[in-house]
């Protein structure tokens, strides 16, 4: 079994299991799409200022929701499923088989990337069809932003799973970390980059992913990839921190009572 076909096999099983858990799947998909509908309904006719000038709210909000969807798919999913599987003993059982840890984790990450891509496509399609959002064809930029975001938030999801002591604590810990950062990062409305909040937010990765995606979708600037490499760098840095923490703390077994 070559390494790649091993990961492919894992991906197929992970996908099968994922779609058989409708509650979790619905949560990942419903949340971002619901926010998209509600917030564009509230702010539909408003305009926001981004680099290059004023755009309609949805032009900002669709890429922001793509970022939110990617974070739900990668960070939230991995932190949840890894901690639950660890506490249930699923990880311990797998550790006793010849399945290599690298193959297993690659399969998990491949799975959340597939989910992110589906969510991105859905959100973009809704934006283009219902909210008259423009996509200026920066496919390379989109791929770079999604790849850097998936790397960063997958690594952070694995890292955060190692801090979750039991299944019951998982939602609280995962969301308590995530939601404040989402709010200050402008997920649900623009935040002026000169403001204090924006300065705090720019320490964390969420704002950088949103800025990358907003720039990729920005119709007011012409050409290029739209990518700011400083934003990409911050995502890679946080991803690296996530990996270091994960390598240091990851366990296959539930806590011993």
């Amino acid at each position, binding site marked *: 079994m070559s390494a790649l076909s091993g990961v492919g*096999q894992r991906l197929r099983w992970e996908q099968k299991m994922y779609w058989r858990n409708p509650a979790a799947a619905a949560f990942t998909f419903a949340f971002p799409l619901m926010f998209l509908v509600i917030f564009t309904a509230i702010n539909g006719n408003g305009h926001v200022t981004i680099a290059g000038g004023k755009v309609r709210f949805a032009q900002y909000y669709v890429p922001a929701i793509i970022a939110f969807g990617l974070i739900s798919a990668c960070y939230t999913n991995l932190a949840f499923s890894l901690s639950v599987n660890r506490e*249930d*003993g699923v990880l*311990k*059982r797998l550790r006793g*088989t*010849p399945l290599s840890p690298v193959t297993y984790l690659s399969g998990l990450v491949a799975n959340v990337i597939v989910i992110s891509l589906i969510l991105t496509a859905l959100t973009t399609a809704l934006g283009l069809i219902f909210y008259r959002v423009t996509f200026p064809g920066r496919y390379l930029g989109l791929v770079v932003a999604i790849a850097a975001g998936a790397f960063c938030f997958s690594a952070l999801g694995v890292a955060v799973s190692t801090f979750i002591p039991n299944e019951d604590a998982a939602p609280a810990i995962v969301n308590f970390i995530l939601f404040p950062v989402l709010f200050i990062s402008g997920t649900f409305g623009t935040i002026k980059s000169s403001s204090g909040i924006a300065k705090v937010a720019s320490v964390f990765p969420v704002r950088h992913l949103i800025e990358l995606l907003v720039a990729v979708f920005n119709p007011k600037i012409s050409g290029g990839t739209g990518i700011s490499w400083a934003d990409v760098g911050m995502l890679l840095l946080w991803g690296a921190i996530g990996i270091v923490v994960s390598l240091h703390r990851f366990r296959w077994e539930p806590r011993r009572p």
Partner: protein
Amino acid sequence: MIAIDVQGLHKSFGGVEAVRGLDFHVEEGEVVAVLGPNGAGKTTTVEILEGYLERDSGHVSVLGVDPAKGGDDFRQRIGIVLQECGITAYLKVGEVLTMHAGFYRRPRRVDEVIALVGLEEKAGSRIKSLSGGQRRRLDLALGLIGDPELLFLDEPTTGFDPTARRQAWEVVRNLGRLGKTILLTTHYMDEAQALADRVMVVTAGRIVAEGPPDSIGGRAHADAQIRFLLPAGVSITDLPLTASPEAAGMVLVSTAEPTGALHHLTGWALDAGHKLDLLTVTKPSLEDIYIALTATTDDEREKV
């Protein structure tokens, strides 16, 4: 060939010694039961052999490999049935087995393994719908799917109803006949008796007795035990043999010469016109031996 070799094994958790110097080995093709009360160090020992836990000191070799450094090649050759361990949710019985079969170079056929553990009717059912006993049989199936040379069974039938236990025993016996090496832990005496070629009794992290189930702890040479209901109006001192009282009016005569003792006793009863209700002659059960063995070490421990 020696499948498992353990010398001077020690393991502590936060200053508490769980395993205090174990020495034993298991031959290839042997079925060995580790018997002991909860907290005796059984699971710790097995998890060291499986490669889950690192030992503090001592020599451990499993299939010629140090399990702490075994890696994926080592895990190709062993099968593990853990105590209470989750199964990937949202899959069906056949699917979980197919998925696990994919981890191994030379797995057994899924339908064959399903038949072996008697889960044919449940092959297409979700894991969630299985009863406790069926779950445990699936655990066993997952331990077997890689066609291991060596199988670890940690309390394989805990929580089974009597029928399910008999079925599981039959599966394990068949594996033994196929020449698989099996190390099982249990706290059921009858399970050890039914399955094992050899029994090790472990208490407080040490082996206190070891041998075939029929002769362990001097069982083969132990005194026979004659029990009967003390006849009405007879005092225990009136009996022609030294006897000790037991519960519910029963008395016990222990003797190395049961033939003579019985002759003496029944002769006396016939002459005196007494019936000897509920008369039995038995060897001490494995349970008696086990309780005697584990009780002694408890006393010793208290003296320390």
